[in-house]
């Protein structure tokens, strides 16, 4: 499932049908009943309550339902029969938030066979998912798949798929126990055992993300990945965690050898679709989620044989890759596919950066972040000097966690310029 990043702050939502289909075989009463059941499908799983308000009710229902044609004063004009069918607006404070629009030029049906018009109940369940804060899902059995999939059966018996329930409950919690939760008969066969865990995996419970101390942190296609042991969390560009529960490394990164249970660093080369994961003196290259080729030695990137890395990142300013170990770093030229000469250099060039960072990542706005323990140091876009208020606790900013009670184990960066030391350096343009 995918979350839009916004939710309703109240648990009882009002709804009203503002306009009915103009030329549908469905009566107004049938449309009302279908809308009621479509909302109830979400309500029963979350405990959310939906209250219909009539024309005598408050002028602004939270979910205002309209059947409209063509351009109707929002950013999603309809296109006649077929094509786009409906849309809804995510929760929020704006008057249009939660409103749900159906294309009045569709042939809306109920109880017909697939292919004979478009099932209004199925589309309404989908759209109300958006109105409650869910985005589109790619899960095969999800009602939140973006494509119309035909009727979904009897509205009074309809139940959301597990993917949809989990998405909803991530936003609003679980509702009171429903008849669905109580087994009516013994299962015919025991459920299949869970898939085997990779060797060396810790047993439950899963690690606490609020502890910090991640093995690796990387910006991968706009999302920030936080790796810890054989687990990882994902933070969407909107700043929302995909889930507070971590995902398993080996379920996602297809082909990662089972013996690799810790990712020490990760990054994506600038303007490149590849994803590099580092563990020990080796790294693995992924295309999307699939492993490409065998493990490769870090020596390929210019590090001494047997060396490991604490952090790796691609700096957008020059497109080069930086590999950090302890208080030193190496630089790799992706364009020339060779290590830059004259490295390693001292990490103190990054003024205020902690030694042996857990990892370094570049955010979507171009700032560079060094992470260590439960804190981060921010370097503004193009700068090698940390923000004066660094370090800051990671939890509130990144992981939906409270600030840690203890301060960083490393001193705050000096605010004054460091004592000048003799150096053998030369300036290059843009550096």
């Amino acid at each position: 499932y995918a979350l839009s990043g916004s939710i309703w702050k109240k648990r009882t939502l009002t709804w009203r049908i503002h306009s009915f289909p103009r030329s549908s075989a469905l009566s107004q009463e049938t449309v009302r009943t279908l809308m009621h059941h479509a909302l109830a499908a979400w309500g029963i799983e979350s405990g959310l309550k939906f209250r219909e308000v009539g024309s005598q009710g408050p002028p602004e229902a939270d979910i205002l339902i309209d059947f409209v044609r063509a351009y109707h004063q929002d950013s999603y004009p309809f296109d006649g029969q077929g094509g786009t069918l409906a849309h809804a607006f995510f929760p929020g404070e704006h008057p249009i938030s939660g409103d749900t629009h159906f294309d009045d030029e569709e042939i809306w049906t109920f109880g017909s066979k697939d292919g004979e018009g478009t099932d209004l109940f199925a589309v309404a369940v989908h759209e109300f998912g958006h109105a409650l804060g869910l985005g589109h899902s790619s899960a095969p059995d999800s009602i939140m798949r973006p494509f119309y999939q035909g009727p979904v059966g009897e509205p009074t018996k309809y139940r959301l798929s597990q993917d949809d329930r989990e998405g909803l409950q991530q936003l609003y919690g679980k509702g009171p126990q429903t008849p669905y939760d109580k087994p009516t008969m013994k299962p015919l066969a025991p459920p299949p055992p869970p898939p085997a865990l990779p060797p060396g995996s810790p047993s439950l419970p899963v690690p606490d993300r609020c502890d910090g101390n991640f093995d690796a942190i990387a910006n991968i296609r706009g999302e920030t990945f936080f790796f810890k042991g054989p687990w990882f969390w994902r933070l969407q560009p909107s700043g929302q965690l995909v889930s507070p529960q971590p995902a398993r490394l080996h379920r996602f990164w297809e082909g990662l050898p089972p013996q690799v249970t810790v990712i020490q660093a990760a990054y994506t080369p600038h303007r490149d679709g590849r994803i590099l994961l580092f563990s020990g003196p080796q790294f693995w290259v992924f295309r999307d989620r699939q492993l490409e080729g065998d493990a490769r030695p870090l020596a390929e990137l210019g590090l001494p044989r047997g060396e490991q890395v604490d952090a790796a990142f691609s700096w957008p300013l020059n497109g080069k890759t930086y590999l950090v170990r302890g208080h030193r770093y190496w630089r790799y030229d992706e364009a020339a596919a060779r290590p830059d000469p004259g490295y390693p250099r001292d990490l103190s060039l990054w003024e205020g950066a902690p030694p042996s960072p857990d990892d370094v990542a570049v955010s979507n706005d171009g700032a560079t972040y060094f992470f260590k323990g439960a804190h981060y140091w921010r370097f503004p876009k193009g700068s090698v000097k940390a923000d004066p208020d660094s370090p800051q606790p990671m939890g509130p900013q990144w992981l939906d966690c409270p600030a840690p009670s203890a301060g960083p184990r490393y001193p705050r960066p000096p605010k004054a310029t460091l004592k000048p030391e003799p150096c053998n350096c030369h300036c290059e343009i843009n550096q």
Partner: protein
Amino acid sequence: APEPAAQDVSLGLDWLTRYGYLPPPDPAQAQLRSPEKLRDAIKVMQRFAGLPETGLLDPVTMATMHKPRCSLPDVLGVAELVRRRRRRR
């Protein structure tokens, strides 16, 4: 594989942009989309739709793009945030 028809490429680009797989074009600059970026966007769309990830505007992919669907984008990225911000304003 045969080259897709220009009309299919045009429809594909429009569809991929509308549903969030490609960034919206910047009106301030005439921007060409690289074949690699287009292929990546098609692959993401194919993965989302449960199709074989060919990266090509093949007949199955084009047929999926013609299916009735919800108007909201599949990838909630910059385009949707801009749209929301405009709406709020």
